[in-house]
């Protein structure tokens, strides 16, 4: 009997671990290192209507126990994702979470409608929170009405459940969560990156060509845990938690906060095997905690 399987809208996962969008490309690279069939699901890189090159480099900078990124949603574009990336992924049975982004509402709708029809896409992750795109991008993620409206429109055209990915760069995360739940979101995924910056002390300018970037990694974990703790008590829909997860114990903390599954991002760059390692270690951790099934821990810190 499995102790790790999790059933979420659209996602039937043998374990609650998925690589976070943007940290795993479309799976090809990590498939060279291990059998990605082991993963609970895969969140693929954000897809936009058009092919995007993204921001100029440098696109990443290291911070204390974290990193900044300003990739700028580089991706091959809807057509290529459908005909190349997703088709390649068909050889695996792992559920795919398609992260979708855009700068205009129409873009989101077009991508949502088409990507959600791909046979191996089991859920959409509506990225309303990418801090690295000038136009719109961020507004969607910071205004509850705008976010709700977008969610509603995407739900109308999507053939699969929609998870809305929330930005932590807001005054009231609960208000955002409730707004998208009301608008019909099937789940939430949180948190995206915190807006940050590092300055090159010799050159006297920001390290990132985009100047600001998204902070990820262990440094932001307490913020992620706090937001999931607050939101999970205010909504009925499940939460895919992320933000600084490095090991199996971190996963437990996210479950206790209120997450029903987790995504691992930055940690893949530190240890490319981190996802399978966590999946292997979770059973021992459950033993130590004297828990039969990981789902018993969901919201355990407030239930």
């Amino acid at each position, binding site marked *: 009997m499995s102790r790790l399987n999790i059933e979420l809208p659209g996602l039937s996962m043998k374990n609650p671990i998925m690589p976070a969008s*943007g*940290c*795993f*490309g479309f799976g*090809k*690279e*990590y498939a*060279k*290192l291990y059998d990605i069939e082991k993963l609970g699901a895969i969140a693929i*890189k954000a897809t936009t209507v058009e*092919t*995007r*090159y*993204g921001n100029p*480099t*440098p*696109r*990443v*900078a*290291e*911070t*204390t*126990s*974290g*990193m900044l*990124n300003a*990739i700028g949603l*580089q991706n091959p*574009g809807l057509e290529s994702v459908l005909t190349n990336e997703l088709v390649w992924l068909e050889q695996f049975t792992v559920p795919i979470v398609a992260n979708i982004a855009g700068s205009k509402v129409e873009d989101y709708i077009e991508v949502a409608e088409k990507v959600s029809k791909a046979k191996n896409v089991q859920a959409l992750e509506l990225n309303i929170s990418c801090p690295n795109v000038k136009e719109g991008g961020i507004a969607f993620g910071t205004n509850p009405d705008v976010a709700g409206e977008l969610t509603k429109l995407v739900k109308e055209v999507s053939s699969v459940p929609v998870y809305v990915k929330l930005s932590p760069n807001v005054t009231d995360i609960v208000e955002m969560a409730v707004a998208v739940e009301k608008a019909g979101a099937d789940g939430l995924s949180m948190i995206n990156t915190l807006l940050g910056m590092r300055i090159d002390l010799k050159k006297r300018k920001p*390290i990132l060509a985009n100047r600001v970037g998204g902070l990820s*990694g*262990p440094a932001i974990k307490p913020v992620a845990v706090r937001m999931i703790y607050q939101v999970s008590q205010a909504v009925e829909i499940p939460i895919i938690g992320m933000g600084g997860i*490095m090991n199996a114990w971190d996963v437990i903390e996210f479950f206790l906060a209120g997450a029903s599954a987790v995504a691992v991002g*930055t940690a*893949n*760059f*530190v*240890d*490319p*095997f981190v996802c399978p390692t966590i999946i292997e270690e979770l059973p021992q951790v459950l033993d130590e905690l004297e828990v039969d099934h990981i789902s018993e821990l969901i919201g355990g810190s407030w239930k």
Partner: protein
Amino acid sequence: MIVETMEIVGQRKIANNAYELVLKGQDLVSLANQGQFLHVQVNEGTDPLLRRPISIADINKQNAELTVIYRAGGKGTNMLALKQKGESVSVLGPLGNGFSITETNPGEVALLIGGGIGVPPLYELSKQLTKLGVTVIHVLGFSSSEDVFYEEKFAELGQTYVTTMDGTYGEHGTVIDVILKQGFHFDIIYSCGPTPMLKAIESTFPNKKGFLSLEERMGCGIGACFACVCHKKDDPTGTAYKKICTDGPVFAIGEVEL
């Protein structure tokens, strides 16, 4: 490409802030080629968080040893410099395409141009080229006398010219100055060093066959995060791109925007 815990069997300062690190492993070494790089985790824990990309300078398959040469400057490399013989580091590699030597035929002359901390990968390359019967000429540029390293080792393989920006050692000036002054005859260029130097090479020898090794800040090092892309020459502002970590770090002259 694998992850291996490699033991430090040698660590010595060979120039101003430059260290030669010898790592002993198993399978990883047997996969390594000239011009590829390693993604080194300098420390356990989360600070520094990211791995550091460092080129392979010398490959010794019999002893399963790899040599890298790095400049200690920032947080991570300074920590690496404190590591002692006997300690070990986690290494992801070998990464990248490396220098192709198939284009070069025995008897031909290869001009190897290195700048500062771009010099190391040229050493293994030079060993491989000479083994092929290719004649190598090395032009190695450093900022100052105390930065110079590996001159003798290169000299054992072929003609070697060292130049310093401040003229405190060898020739005075840039590598380009030296090359033009000497007026070498050569068939192919291999180079690694600061971008301005690579640009100068491209503009000075527009019609030369050759390969350049590039640098960029990296996340994953394996092609998944899109941190390290560059534009293609034929589409400088478009959406076409190359990933330096996987399509590179070595590119043919004229292939990508520098």
